[in-house]
């Protein structure tokens, strides 16, 4: 599934746009622990988290993620949005909980790192 389709189908808020909205997304990762994400999330994934501070941007950039989805209606800080835009990191938001947005994405074919899509 393309990132642009994920955004449209799930009515995600775009806090910082993607430079590659047509990239194919095969995987997702859910965690609020940055050490866990750094070690275990994969390239070109979408990352569901409640963390809204600016350190999520460095983590997403280091892991070459396709985007961050901030769950539960939480909003990233202005600092986070500014940094995301300057680094070209895509930051999205949803009113859904981590469980619900993950379930929706799983139903559209995305898998975790331990399963092939």
């Amino acid at each position, binding site marked *: 599934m393309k990132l642009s389709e994920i955004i449209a189908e799930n009515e995600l808020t775009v806090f910082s746009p993607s430079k590659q909205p047509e990239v194919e997304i095969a995987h997702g990762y859910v965690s609020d*622990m940055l050490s866990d994400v750094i070690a275990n999330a994969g390239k070109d994934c979408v990352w569901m988290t409640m963390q809204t501070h600016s*350190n999520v941007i460095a983590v997403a950039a280091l892991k070459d993620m396709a985007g961050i989805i901030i769950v539960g209606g939480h909003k990233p800080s202005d600092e986070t949005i500014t940094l995301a835009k300057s680094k070209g990191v895509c930051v999205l938001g949803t009113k859904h909980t981590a469980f619900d947005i993950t379930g929706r994405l799983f139903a559209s074919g995305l898998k975790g790192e331990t399963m092939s899509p």
Partner: protein
Amino acid sequence: MDGQLIQMEFPVKGGNFGGAGDAASKIKNILKQLGIRYEIIKRVAIASYEAEMNIVAHAAEGTIVVEINPNAVVVAAKDKGPGIPDIDLAMKEGFSTASQQIREMGFGAGMGLPNIKKATDDMTIKTEVGVGTELTFKIFLTDNREETLK
């Protein structure tokens, strides 16, 4: 890049969560420019980020020195700080002295040092309580795990 040696140094400030990850990100970009394989870059990125975060979260100030030689990427993260009183305990998954505030940010899971160990071919910690810590790790460019068994 045969026979060539590249060395670079990045300063890291303790408590500066805003700039945290900058050194790791610069290191990653250099390796990318050198055309190093993604598998290697990934491992260097994980270990460098955790080493940088440990200076930010636990020390006063430090530097990260990266050396890229034809065989390996060698990273030394050296800081002035409290030091580590018990290295075996610090290496345990889940052990952390991070404050509640740091934990709420998603740091302080006590996974940093174990993650560095897992991601690298060699890791050593030299530390003195009240003075500082020097963590060094090495990742072979050949990614030949047998070579790492010595």
